[in-house]
C-alpha cells in the first residue's frame, strides 16, 4: 500500500515537472527570426572551447570583430560573449563563468558599458541572463542586474515571467522548442547591410562625467580575475560614433589602464588607420559596424594581439583547422544569403530589420 502511494506520488511529481518544463520550453521567446540577439549568450555552450581570446561586452563588441577573420588572417581562435547593452557586472559574471570552461590567453573588454552604474532595463537583462546556464555566476549576475520590479524567482523559472506569451505563440515557438540552428559566428552577429553616417548627434552635457563606483568595482574585479588566472586583459572602445564617447570618459579609461598596467585602445582615434569608412562600414548610421567594418577591425586588431601577446598561429593544427573551415563555410554561406536577401528586398527582412522607406523622415 505504502509502495503504491509512494510510486503514485513520484509519478505525479514527474508528470508535473515534465509538463512545466515543456511549457517553459514552449513559452520562452525563441529569438530566431526577430531580436536574434536574445540567442547570443546560449550559443556559447555548444562550442568547442579552448579559445585564445575571449571578448566580453555589449553590442559594440559583438558587431565589431569577426572571429572568422581573426582565424583566417592570424590563426587566432576567439569567441565573443556579448549581448545587447550588456552591463559590466553581466560581462564580469559571464567571464567568471567562461573561465570555468576554458582559459584564454587574452580577454578583451569594451568600455562603453562603464557609463552604466545601475541596472537599466528588463529586456536587456533578459537577453544577457536567460541564455546563461544555471550556475553560481548566473545567480550573482541576476542579483546584480535586477531592476526594481523584477523577481529573482522569475529568472530561475522563466515560465513565471513568460506564461502570458501563450496568446502570442507562433509556429516558430513549436519549431524551435528544443533545438535552434546556429545564428552567429563564435558570438559575432553578422550584418551585411549598409546605412551610411550622415549626421552624428552632439553629446549632451552631463551633470557628472565620473563613471560610477559600481562600474569601477566590477572593472576592478575583472582586472583581479584576469590577474589571478594569468590572463592578459585588454580594454577597448570600438569606433562607434553614437552613443557619444566623452573626452572626460576617455581620460578616466586612459588613467585606469595606465594605473593597472593594461593595454587600452580607443579605436575612435584609429578610424583612418583601421580603414573604417562610415559611408560603407556601418549598417545603422554609425552605431554599429557591419561585416566589412568588423572584418577591417579584426585584421587590424589581430595584428596587435599577435605582436603584443605573441599569440600563436594555430592554422597548422589539423583538427582545429577542419573545425574552423566548417565555421568559415557557414560564415560565407550566411554572407551570400544576406547579400541575396538585400538584393531581393532592399533590407534584411529575415533579421527583423525595417524596410528603408519606413524609417525615412516624412
Amino acid at each position, binding site marked *: 500500500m505504502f509502495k503504491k502511494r509512494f510510486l503514485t506520488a513520484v509519478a505525479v511529481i514527474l508528470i508535473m515537472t515534465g509538463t512545466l518544463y515543456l511549457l517553459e520550453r514552449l513559452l520562452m521567446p525563441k*529569438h530566431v527570426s526577430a531580436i536574434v540577439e536574445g540567442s547570443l549568450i546560449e550559443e556559447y555552450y555548444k562550442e568547442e572551447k579552448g579559445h585564445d581570446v575571449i571578448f566580453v561586452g555589449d553590442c559594440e563588441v559583438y558587431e565589431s570583430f569577426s572571429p572568422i577573420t581573426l582565424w583566417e588572417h592570424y590563426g587566432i581562435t576567439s569567441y565573443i560573449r556579448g549581448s545587447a547593452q550588456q552591463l559590466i557586472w553581466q560581462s564580469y559574471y559571464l567571464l567568471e563563468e567562461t573561465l570555468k570552461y576554458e582559459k584564454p590567453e587574452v580577454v578583451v573588454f569594451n568600455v562603453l558599458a562603464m557609463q552604466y552604474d545601475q541596472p537599466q532595463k528588463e529586456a536587456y537583462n533578459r537577453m544577457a541572463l536567460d541564455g546563461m546556464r544555471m550556475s553560481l555566476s548566473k545567480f550573482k549576475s541576476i542579483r546584480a542586474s535586477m531592476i526594481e520590479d523584477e523577481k529573482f524567482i522569475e529568472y530561475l523559472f522563466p515560465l513565471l515571467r513568460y506564461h502570458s506569451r501563450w496568446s502570442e505563440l507562433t509556429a516558430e515557438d513549436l519549431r524551435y522548442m528544443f533545438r535552434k540552428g546556429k545564428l552567429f559566428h563564435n558570438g559575432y552577429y553578422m550584418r551585411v547591410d549598409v546605412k551610411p553616417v550622415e549626421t552624428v548627434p552632439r553629446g549632451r552635457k552631463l551633470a557628472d562625467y565620473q563613471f560610477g563606483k559600481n562600474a569601477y568595482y566590477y572593472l576592478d574585479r575583472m582586472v583581479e580575475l584576469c590577474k589571478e588566472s594569468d590572463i592578459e586583459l585588454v580594454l577597448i572602445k570600438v569606433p562607434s560614433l553614437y552613443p557619444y564617447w566623452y573626452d572626460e570618459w576617455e581620460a578616466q579609461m586612459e588613467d585606469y589602464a595606465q594605473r593597472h598596467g593594461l593595454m587600452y585602445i580607443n579605436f575612435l582615434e584609429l578610424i583612418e588607420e583601421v580603414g573604417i569608412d562610415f559611408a560603407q562600414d556601418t549598417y545603422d548610421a554609425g552605431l554599429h559596424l557591419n561585416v566589412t567594418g568588423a572584418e577591417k577591425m579584426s585584421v587590424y586588431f589581430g595584428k596587435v594581439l599577435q605582436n603584443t601577446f605573441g599569440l600563436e598561429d594555430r592554422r597548422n593544427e589539423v583538427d582545429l583547422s577542419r573545425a574552423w573551415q566548417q565555421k568559415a563555410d557557414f560564415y560565407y554561406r550566411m554572407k551570400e544569403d544576406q547579400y541575396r536577401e538585400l538584393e531581393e528586398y532592399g533590407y534584411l527582412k529575415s533579421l527583423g530589420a525595417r524596410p528603408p522607406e519606413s524609417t525615412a523622415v516624412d
Partner: protein
Amino acid sequence: MKRLSLIILLSLLLTGCSSGADPVSGEAPEGAGDNGPAGYVFENGGVAIAMHGEVEPILQALGDAMEYFEAESCAFQGMEKIFTYSGFELHTYEMEGVDFVAALVFLDDSVSTKEGVYLFSGLEDILSAYGDGYTKTNDMYSYDLDGSRLSFLIENDEVTSIEYLAVTE
C-alpha cells in the same frame, strides 16, 4: 483528485500570477501616449511640447526639421530619433510603433522655457522662476513634475544647458 490539482496548477500558471507583456518585445512605459500637456511643457511658435506626448502632431505643427538623425536601439528595442529645429533638438522614443517625446534640448538662447529661463541666464533666474524644490547633482539643478524633469546646468554662474526629459518610473 490529483488530475484536478494538476489542472488547477496549470490554469493558475497560464492565467494568473503576474506580470505583463513579454519584456523583450517591449511594453509602453507609464505615461507614454498621454497627449494632454502635463509636467513641464516647452512652447515654440504656439506649439506645446510635453514629455511623453505623441510626436506626430507636434512634428506636423513644427514643420520640417533642419536636421534629422535616427538610431535603432540595440536589439530592436525601438527607434530613437532626433529632430533639430532652430534653437532646440527634439528627441523621441518609440513604443509599439508610435513615437513619443523623450527629451528636448536647448541649442542656443533663441528659445526659452515657458517660465522665461534662457541659456546664459543666472541661477537667480532659475530660482525665481522655479523655486528651491530642486535636486542638485554637481552643478545640475533639476525639477521634477508629473513625469517630466527640467534640468539646468550652471557653469561659471551661467546656465549652459537646459533639457526637458521624459521620466519613466
